[in-house]
């Protein structure tokens, strides 16, 4: 084993060794002589040559010389030539990426313990030249260590890992493993995937192709035949009775195991009123369990559904918030010449709404008073002209303050009936009616399914607008600031909206009294009007529950409730585990990530009455499905070579730079030189003191 240098020119610095020699040979004769009056005395003194060059402090001299030698050698970047042994060892060196699944399903039984043991075994099997990275993954993937050959650091990272509440996704973990392997200088790569291999977590579209030299080893910690019962969701139905809302809760239960579950106790805990029923579930089926109605007070209630018991208890409970929904106050303004049943369909449709409910009042435009316009969520001009006089500006003010205005343009709304002020408010200018009766009537040709009003009709058989026939409708010319929600089959605008202040103004180009069209006779009419009026009225449905990992926007109008947060207020968030987080006012909208299942309490610090709001978070239902995917499928999808064909172990020649970098002898030499210099400082400070004291 020889020693060579990467930068041998630095060895010229060894000439610096002369420095301590010069320093030490303080007795060396100086070239210049001292003139002296007479040498008659000095010449009588015997002179001993050997004394003049004696080094006084051998230890100091040696330390100084050694420090310089170490420094120079370190800068010359030495490397040991081990006859190619290092190259051979390095050829067999692996870059191991341990992908450890810590999704919620890993908490099933002893899966996590076995996964941790498997990860430790991988670390224990690392060779001296191997390097490994621990990656924890669930919905996302995080490298818990840098690539390291230190087994202690890897074991510490494994010990610190724990099962989380997130669902499984293999894609991000494999992508991270690929990046690590691509950055590695090791000739061989290996990915060790330790998981329970849930089918729900595997998406072949997310498969990545690992480097060719990489092998994939799958360690399945599932035992097969997993039994799991899960509460996958709740449905709530509200009924208004005697002015109070009654809530009926229906829980969705799923038996994701292979054996039937009989007499499973299912409980609902809401406001200290427990209810319990039993359910029977065949293997691989789901049932709905309905509980007795609960009268809701005027505030949100926390509720939890619990069902049965199994090795994965996290999904056996479901948290949600039962929020009373206030009815929207709707004012229908009819034209003065309207018949008695002019708003019949509207009134009937809005009268049966529950989520939200609608308190409907009807006024003729000629009998409209200012007080009628106050405290309204929605005002519908049902084929009525824009109110004149002082009522017009009052209506405009009400919209700007947050109320919604729905304008229905039927046969009693010729353009001339509208004042210019009223016309300017609308999102579209309208003109005379277009006749489509001769061609059998027009239909709705375009719907913006991305809009909240129409999104529920996106899926097939979820609402058919095509059956409705439109024989007449008014031509609308949408303004630039307006958004078109629907068009007729000839391209004419059917539904358009714009915002005004905090409110919305929508215009429907035909009537809703079954005269110009037969839409009121179609089944889709009811949900369409419900959603349209609720949308115009600014209604946001309070979410009963969120999923872990969801990000909730804490704006003024959120799914948590209406008008819950004013801009610029401080919010204190209490997590289910008891942690507190203060969200400082920085902008109108803030965001809260729900990281664990349970109830999040969000307190408005500015509210005097301690106003707070509750958000419930639950596990992703897909994580409850423990049915596995064959690990070989994943291995085959990401591997270019099979795991048995490891990367070539021969023919790898390490360059001198690589060997030097791997040995890093310079670092130790530099450290030793530093220690030498410190010792020299201490010793040299001490020696003169010793001499003086002596």
């Amino acid at each position, binding site marked *: 084993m020889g020693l060579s240098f990467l930068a041998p020119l630095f060895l010229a610095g060894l000439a610096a060794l002369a420095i301590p020699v010069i320093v030490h040979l303080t007795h060396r004769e100086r070239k210049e002589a*001292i003139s*002296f*009056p*007479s*040498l*008659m005395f*000095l010449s009588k*003194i015997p*002179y001993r040559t050997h*004394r003049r060059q004696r080094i006084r402090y051998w230890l100091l001299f040696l330390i100084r010389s050694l420090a310089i030698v170490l420094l120079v050698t370190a800068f010359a970047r030495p490397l040991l030539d081990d006859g190619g042994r290092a190259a051979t060892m390095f050829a067999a060196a692996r870059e191991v990426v341990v992908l450890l699944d810590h999704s919620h399903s890993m908490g099933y039984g002893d899966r996590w313990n076995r996964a941790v043991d498997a990860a430790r075994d991988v670390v224990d099997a690392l060779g001296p030249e191997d390097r490994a990275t621990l990656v924890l993954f669930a919905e996302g993937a995080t490298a818990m260590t840098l690539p390291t050959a230190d087994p202690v650091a890897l074991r510490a990272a494994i010990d610190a890992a724990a099962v989380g509440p997130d669902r499984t996704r293999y894609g991000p973990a494999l992508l991270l493993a690929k990046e690590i392997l691509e950055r590695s200088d090791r000739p061989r790569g290996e990915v060790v995937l330790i998981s329970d291999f849930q089918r729900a977590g595997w998406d072949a579209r997310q498969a990545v192709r690992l480097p060719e030299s990489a092998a994939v080893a799958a360690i399945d910690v599932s035992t097969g035949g997993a039994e799991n019962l899960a509460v996958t969701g709740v449905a709530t139905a509200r009924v208004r009775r005697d002015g109070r809302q009654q809530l009926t809760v229906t829980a969705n239960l799923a038996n994701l195991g292979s054996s039937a579950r009989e007499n499973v106790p299912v409980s609902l805990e809401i406001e200290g009123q427990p209810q319990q029923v039993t359910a029977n579930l065949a293997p691989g089926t789901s049932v709905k369990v309905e509980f007795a109605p609960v009268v809701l007070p005027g505030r949100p209630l926390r509720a939890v559904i619990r069902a049965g018991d199994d090795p994965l208890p996290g999904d056996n409970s479901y948290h949600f918030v039962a929020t009373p929904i206030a009815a929207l106050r709707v004012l229908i303004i009819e034209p003065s010449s309207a018949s008695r049943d002019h708003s019949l369909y509207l009134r009937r449709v809005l009268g049966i709404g529950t989520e939200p409910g609608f308190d409907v009042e009807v006024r003729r435009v000629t009998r409209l008073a200012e007080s009628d316009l106050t405290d309204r969520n929605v005002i519908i001009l049902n084929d009525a002209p824009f109110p004149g006089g002082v009522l017009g500006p009052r209506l405009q003010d009400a919209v700007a303050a947050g109320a919604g205005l729905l304008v229905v343009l039927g046969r009693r709304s010729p353009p001339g009936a509208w004042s210019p002020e009223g016309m300017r408010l609308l999102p579209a200018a309208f003109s005379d009616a277009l006749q489509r009766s001769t061609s059998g009537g027009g239909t709705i040709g375009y719907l913006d399914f991305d809009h909240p009003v129409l999104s529920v009709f996106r899926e097939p058989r979820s609402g058919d607008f095509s059956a409705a026939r439109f024989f007449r409708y008014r031509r609308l010319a949408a303004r630039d600031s307006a958004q078109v929600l629907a068009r007729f089959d000839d391209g004419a605008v059917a539904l358009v909206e714009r915002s005004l202040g905090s409110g919305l103004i929508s215009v429907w180009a035909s009537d809703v009294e079954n005269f110009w069209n037969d839409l009121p006779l179609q089944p889709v009419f009811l949900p369409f009007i419900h959603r349209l009026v609720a949308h115009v009225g600014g209604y946001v449905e309070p979410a009963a529950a969120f999923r872990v990992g969801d990000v909730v926007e804490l704006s003024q109008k959120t799914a948590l409730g209406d008008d819950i947060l004013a801009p610029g207020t401080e919010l204190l968030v209490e997590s289910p585990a008891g942690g507190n987080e203060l969200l400082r006012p920085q902008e109108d909208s803030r965001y809260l990530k729900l990281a664990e299942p349970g109830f999040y309490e969000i307190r408005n610090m500015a509210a005097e009455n301690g106003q707070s709001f509750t958000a419930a978070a639950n596990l992703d239902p897909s994580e409850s499905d423990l049915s596995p995917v064959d690990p070989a499928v994943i291995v085959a999808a990401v591997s270019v070579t099979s795991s048995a064909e490891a990367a070539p172990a021969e023919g790898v020649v390490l360059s001198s730079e690589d060997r030097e970098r791997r040995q890093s002898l310079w670092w130790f030499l530099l450290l030793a030189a530093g220690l030498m210099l410190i010792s020299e400082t201490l010793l040299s400070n001490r020696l003169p003191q010793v001499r003086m004291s002596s």
Partner: protein
Amino acid sequence: MKPYGFLDPQVLARIDNLELLARTVVDGFINGLHRSPYLGLSIDFAEHRPYMPGDDIRRIDWRVFGRTDRFYVKEFEADTNANFLVILDVSRSMDYASGGITKLDYARYLAACLSYFSRQQRDRVGLATIDNDIIEMVPPSAKHLEIVLHTIERVRPGGRGGLEPPLHKVAEAIKRRSIVALISDLYDEPQAIVRAASYLKNKGNDVLVFHVLDPAEIEFPFEGAVHFEDLESGERIPVIPERQREQYLQLMNAHLAETSRLLVENRIDYFRFETRQPLDHALFSYLSRREKLSRVR
């Protein structure tokens, strides 16, 4: 208070004019002493001048009155008591200074001050500069002070030193009993020094030896292995001062002690000076010696 602070040799070295230097030293010294410097009162006729009212009538020269019928008063000057000869060693070894002024400069100032002071005492002053021979000789005279001072001012370091030959010649040259002040660094064997001084002593002269040394010659404060070069011979020898200091000091002290002892035994006054000492010391020593001589006479 530094009693002789203003007489520091290094301060005096800034005065170019030797007479001024000597006057500065001597007058300052006398004024500080508050004693009359006029010790000998023998009078020599100097000149006549017309009688002025108030003059002592006993000083009227009646013989001149008899010849000229005018009153003249005889002017006298104090007569010299003795010759005062300074023998100044200007050998190359005197041209040494470890920090302040050289021994030669110190010796020059000392010679000038002694000469000036002696002239104030109405002595006749003379000067001999020597190395291993007489370089220059100014015979003692009442009117030679300026020449002496001028000669001292022109002194330059000479060659190798040696006391016996030049002192022997000086002793032969002095015809009248004199006070002889030898100013030298005395780099010679003590017996040789005494022999040389004895030439003068045996001629009836009062001999004073002013031994001028640099502090470095006495303390030998050198460090580090170096070569020492003899100023006179140019010889070089390697020296480790730390190792040889002790022996050097022993030899030097033995030399000083032996020289002093032998000179005193031969009734030759011996004074040792370091160039860092004020010149007043030298004057005071000389003065004390002159007092003693005066009382003897």
